[in-house]
């Protein structure tokens, strides 16, 4: 049996979701929710039910939820949608530790002449609300901050950032793709205007997500065409995905407190077992402000790349930073921003638990990880030669 410790990359389908998809597939009605006929009406009812389920997960009204193709589209929509709807304001505030689906649209805006402020985190991966307050002004169109960081799990105090943002008249977007379903979320408590959530992090299939758009906030659509999703997002909705998303959202919120406590205990147990077996193992990220499922760990004296592959061959699936286009792993930009050296970042792995994790898996994973670490360290020590070469090859890159 393989052990899946990569929930932050995407969770396996929840049993409730599998059932819902099977039931949905068995239905004999073609389904375009915009169609006038009875089949269309049933499809529309299913879509709106899913919207209400997703809205409940984040404490929003159903009409404030726009379905998208996933977290990446939601983030693109938030950033480009605000920039397009507020052409007078020419400044955007964010941080350097955001997901690539935030960073790349910000680069795009910078290329369009926007001033883009990217705040640096502290060594825990926390963005100071005071730094946001200092950066935001009446020329600021948007502030976008990730609620829980995908790589280290650190949670930002977004509610404390909201007041100066609102006072400056800027829109506040929060990327909650990693937080949704793991901590209780209410958009009114977060005091945000826009919120990204993603289906496959919750145990729905990939290809469905949502953007919460607070009533009254103007966004320029980035997908043009028909008037679907209240004219915010053209294209026939992914009804099957939305239905699965709704069921996943409901399942995640149903026992959120017990389930997040269970996963937190498992993660603590895993960390305790690993710390006992691996001297000088270090955890990255805030010990206090965090989603409890995520363990970002620096393994002394080994390359994370080797650990990741060796663990996969032993049936334990983990991840490291983000993969490049060729499929090789790169050191995490988040860890580098938190002040880790390149070597430390290259020795770090992310283990993320979720609904499918069990105590038995955690015990077995800890045993395998410790064994693999000992083997990798003995066979392939992280020597000066391995890391010192970087400078030499960069000389040739120029």
């Amino acid at each position, binding site marked *: 049996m393989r052990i899946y410790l990569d929930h932050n990359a995407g969770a396996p389908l929840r049993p409730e979701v599998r059932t819902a998809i099977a039931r949905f597939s068995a239905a004999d009605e073609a389904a375009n929710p915009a169609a006038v006929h009875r089949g269309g009406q049933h499809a529309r009812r299913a879509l709106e039910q899913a919207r209400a389920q997703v809205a409940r997960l984040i404490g929003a009204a159903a009409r404030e939820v726009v379905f998208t193709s996933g977290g990446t589209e939601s983030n693109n929509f938030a950033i480009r949608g605000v920039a397009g709807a507020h052409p007078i304001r020419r400044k955007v505030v964010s941080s350097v530790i955001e997901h690539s689906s935030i960073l790349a649209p910000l680069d795009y805006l910078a290329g369009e002449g926007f001033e883009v402020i990217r705040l640096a985190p502290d060594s825990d991966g926390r963005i100071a609300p005071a730094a946001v307050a200092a950066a935001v002004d009446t020329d600021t169109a948007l502030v976008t901050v990730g609620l829980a960081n995908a790589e280290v799990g650190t949670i930002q105090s977004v509610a404390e950032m909201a007041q100066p943002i609102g006072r400056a008249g800027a829109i506040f977007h929060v990327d909650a793709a990693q937080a949704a379903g793991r901590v209780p979320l209410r958009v009114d408590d977060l005091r945000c205007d826009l919120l990204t959530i993603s289906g496959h992090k919750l145990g729905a299939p990939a290809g469905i997500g949502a953007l919460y758009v607070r009533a009254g906030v103007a966004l320029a659509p980035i997908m043009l065409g028909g008037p679907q999703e209240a004219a915010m997002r053209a294209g026939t909705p992914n009804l099957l995905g939305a239905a699965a998303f709704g069921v996943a959202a409901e399942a995640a919120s149903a026992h959120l407190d017990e389930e997040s406590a269970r996963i937190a205990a498992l993660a603590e147990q895993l960390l305790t077992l690993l710390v006992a077996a691996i001297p000088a193992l270090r955890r990255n990220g805030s010990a206090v402000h965090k989603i409890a499922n995520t363990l970002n760990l620096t393994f002394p004296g080994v390359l994370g790349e080797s650990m990741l592959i060796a663990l996969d061959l032993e049936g334990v699936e983990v991840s490291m930073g983000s993969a490049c286009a060729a499929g090789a792993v790169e050191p995490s930009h988040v860890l580098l921003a938190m002040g880790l050296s390149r070597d430390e970042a290259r020795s770090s792995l992310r283990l993320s638990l979720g609904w499918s994790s069990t105590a038995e898996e955690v015990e077995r994973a800890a045993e395998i990880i410790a064994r693999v670490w000992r083997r990798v360290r003995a066979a392939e020590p992280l020597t000066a030669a391995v890391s010192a070469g970087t400078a*030499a090859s960069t000389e*040739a890159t120029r």
Partner: protein
Amino acid sequence: MSARVLVAMSGGVDSSVAAAILCERGYDVVGVAMRLAPEDPTPAIARRRGTCCSHEDFEDARRVAEVMDFPFYVVDLRAEFGARVIDNFVSEYLGGRTPNPCVMCNREIKFDRLRERARALGADYVATGHYARIERDAGGRFHLLRAADAAKDQSYFLFTLGQPELARTLFPLGAMTKAEVRARARELGLANADKAESQEICFVPDGDYARFVERAAAPQRLRPGSIVDLKGRPLAAHAGVHRFTVGQRRGLGLSASAPLYVREIRAESGEVVVGPREDLVAAGLLARDVTFVDPESVGADAIAVETRIRYRHPALPATLAVEPDGRARVTFANSGGPAVTPGQACVFYRGDEVVGGGFIERAL
């Protein structure tokens, strides 16, 4: 449990078939594609075919792994490749020598760094798509032999392998011809069955070594100077000794009644000595960093070998004597050999067997 083997995959047909054959033989195959060359900053060049580490080639390797259903990973060895292969390549050119980076890559990366990685991954063997054979004799000693396909034989690039390496290395293609390998690839439905061979050095896809050296090295390391004749008379100025190779005729920018060849490169003074063809003939050579595939098989006495002083050259009968300092003195049996080019590998054979080799220091 079957033995685990780490297969170095370039995306080309050879390493793909090698991996497939090992799968069929029941090995626990783990495919790896190595990121070696630093990303080329020019997209037009990065897109070119024929380099060994472009994304497209990784995708070909990945497809083979999908077809044969074995795990496949891309590993980042750019730092090691930069420090141990590219830096050496640049320093050798700046020192007036003509390096062979494929030999260095085999010695430093595929059969050193990658062997470490194999052990880290619990693999017993490293395999590649090289055309060469390994045989184990009754006494447990390993022998490195030329490939069955003489036209594809790559044993020249592998002379640095010793007993510990050979004991843990597999060359599944050693007994096959290239035509057989392509036929196997088509049988297996591999998309790269008819893919073109890579010819250039992988990190210099445009083949312009001089420009690569000039971009990689700090300007003060370049050694400009004069092209001089055999009597030391200057004939022309040049921009750096790295632009020349001993034995080179073309591109000297000289006009003379008879063709002139580079005979010697003096990196310290920046002098490139040219002369007519006959002056290239050497009686022998001095090699450094000499290693033997099986040191126990080589005694203190001089031995008769055939030596190849360039990949595509025929082996020349010669006598080999190892000096106390680890250098070897190679005396050719017949005169009239090709140009002896410092920096190139010289590899010693006895029949089909690789005895060992070293790097050419100078002609004798």
